[in-house]
């Protein structure tokens, strides 16, 4: 049990910290949420800066533009970017945290060379085409079809919750390539260029009132067969690789940000007054913040424990389900506390009275999506009980 970062890790930390100290203040503030072209410039612009400085894809292979660093250096990266309040990964999320790692694990040499450096440079934005209106938690029942026609797949279907669909260049798309096989064995994983004819993207406003989500209608979209990742009909296994990344180290940055927020909340409570005294004088509030901090610290320790497992096996394990479940539910409780702390100020969506209202509200509302997306809390509990604890499946 060794929690100490190596000398190399600490050297990396010092370099990164001073780079962030210089660059973060220079990067413009995030544009309004509805201004998609400006958001793209903002999010990918930061990604490009990371790349130019050698901090993009910290643990991705060097030959594809990554830093080729260790997983612990990646952890240092998350710690330092969170502490520096560096710009959020934003619309680079699917490519950097999801599609990219899947291509590294399962893609062809050509796919790696084509996509990985461009994702890291902020030149490619990806979206996710997994869920469908009638394939949510039961993702494997997806109906979007891909029929082979010469050297193309002809794709028809309807995808939903396609974050960044409006601006994406590529979509990690799940399609049914064998309708007669059992549902888990007829799915394929395809990289779909969003420029192809037959793709219609319609914004789907979220409860935040913004259009991060989209629906995607696919009508006779002709996708070249070389866009297939891995083998035809092997997409379910590949999806589970992808989802494990989504449930694994992908949360590291978020856990640190949560810890940072608890610290900010304590400072806020020292500033706000309630009944004539600082809110922080309230013992019950302090204990509640302390309790949440205890859980956040435990999650961070669990993250490091799972990192140790990945270092051993090369793959995020099933334990990611426990981490995802615990983190997403904790985040909701933490920002609920933030909302209570703000009191009536939280009735405004924008900062009011020099209070960080917008941040708290956006994070609170966004946290509501986390227990639903990437396998709902209920799906995670099924995975944990069936695949870790060995309990029998429900009749399905």
């Amino acid at each position, binding site marked *: *049990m*060794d*929690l*100490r*970062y*190596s000398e190399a*890790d600490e050297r990396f930390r010092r370099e990164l910290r001073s780079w962030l100290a210089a660059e973060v203040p220079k990067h413009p503030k995030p544009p309004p949420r509805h201004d998609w072209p400006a958001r793209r410039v903002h999010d990918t612009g930061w990604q490009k800066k990371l790349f130019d400085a050698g901090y993009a894809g910290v643990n991705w292979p060097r030959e594809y533009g990554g830093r080729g660093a260790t997983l*612990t250096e990646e*952890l240092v990266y998350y710690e330092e970017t969170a502490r520096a309040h560096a710009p959020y990964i934003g619309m680079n999320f699917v490519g950097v945290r999801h599609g990219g790692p899947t291509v590294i694990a399962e893609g062809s040499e050509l796919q790696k060379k084509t996509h990985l450096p461009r994702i890291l440079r902020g030149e490619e934005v990806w979206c996710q085409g997994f869920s469908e209106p009638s394939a949510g938690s039961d993702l494997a029942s997806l109906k979007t079809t891909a029929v082979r026609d010469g050297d193309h797949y002809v794709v028809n279907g309807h995808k939903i919750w396609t974050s960044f669909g409006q601006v994406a260049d590529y979509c990690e798309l799940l399609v049914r390539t064998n309708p007669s096989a059992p549902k888990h064995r007829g799915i394929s994983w395809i990289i779909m260029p969003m420029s192809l004819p037959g793709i219609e993207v319609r914004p789907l406003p979220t409860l935040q009132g913004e259009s991060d989500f989209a629906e995607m209608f696919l009508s006779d979209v002709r996708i070249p067969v070389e866009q297939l990742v891995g083998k035809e009909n092997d997409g379910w296994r590949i999806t589970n690789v992808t989802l494990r990344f989504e449930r694994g180290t992908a949360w590291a940055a978020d856990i640190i940000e949560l810890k940072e927020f*608890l*610290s900010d909340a*304590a*400072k806020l409570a020292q500033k706000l007054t309630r009944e004539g005294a600082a809110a922080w004088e309230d*013992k019950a509030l*302090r*204990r*509640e*913040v*302390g*309790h949440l*901090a*205890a*859980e956040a*610290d*435990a*999650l961070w*320790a*669990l993250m*490091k*424990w799972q*990192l*140790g*497992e990945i*270092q*051993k096996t090369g793959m995020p394990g099933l*334990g990611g389900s*426990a981490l995802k*479940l*615990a983190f997403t539910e904790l985040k909701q409780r933490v920002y609920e506390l933030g909302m209570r702390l703000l009191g009536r100020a939280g009735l405004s969506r924008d900062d009011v009275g020099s209070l960080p209202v917008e941040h708290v509200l956006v994070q609170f509302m966004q946290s509501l999506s986390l227990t639903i997306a990437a396998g709902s809390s*209920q799906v*995670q*509990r*099924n995975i*944990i*009980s*069936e695949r*870790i*604890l*060995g*309990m*029998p*499946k*429900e*009749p399905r």
Partner: protein
Amino acid sequence: MDFQLSEDQQALQSGLRTFCDDRYAFENVVALEKTPLDRDRHRELAEMGVFSLRLPEAEGGVGLGMAEAVLVFAELGRRVVPGPLLWSHLCAGLVPGAAAGETIVGGLDRTRPSNEPLLVEYAGALDALVVLKRDGVERIDARKLAGTPVATPLDPLTPLVHAAELPRGERIAGAEQAAQLRLEGTLLTAALCLGIAEMTTELAVDYAKKREQFDRPIASFQAIKHFAADMHVRQEMARASVYAAGATFDDPSVGDVARAVASARVVAGEAAMKNARMCIQIYGGMGYTWEMPPHYYLKRAFVLENAFAAADEACETLAERIDR
């Protein structure tokens, strides 16, 4: 960074597990209800190195650290092993004979004064009673402690004596060491809680797989599975935080020791309490009977909830140290 058990740590853990599974199998533990503190068993635990674990080799100890101690105490917690194990371990370097199990040492934490009744665990069978006070550590001759045995202690394996007052003792260490022992005691209490959280999850899952209702194992119902999944998550969080606190204790350069211990205390304590309660629920009517294991775990969890720094105090410690 390599936050996994080393080979030696795995060997230590599995050695203790084999020992406890055999010597403290449920039927053996139940048989100890009449005499929870048995001198031979205490000496046997000493031979396993439970008390001398962190004592330097030069002083006849095993010379291991807190990272190893939390593994050992988690194993003891899994089998609700009775006895003043924590105090005998804490006092291994302080009270002659404690490390070898010759002197049975119990204790009382009085660093936070209160007017609650003085309930001393295992008092009738102790050789020495160590009292932590704000200004130092005192050793009391346990035979001079006057009090009334509590007729029915909550935990049938943790007998209590209600003492009217504590006789004056001999000062054996200063305030700094009292605080240090309290910190160590808090962390090892969390380790015992981790063992409870783990074992109650295993018990509940095994029971649910065997118990049939509506013509199928109740483990196939989502209502049960999702409770079990939550138990597993609490256990994993507890494990990570207890291990991390152990590693941080041994190498304070990696973090804030007080914060790490407080976090482990809160998370593992809650995991023990909630998992033990849920274990009773999943056992159903059988869980409410004396003959089944779950109630022993819940009762021990209550004993541990009130040992050293309790959860509320730990939460405040965390709140104070949130910026560090």
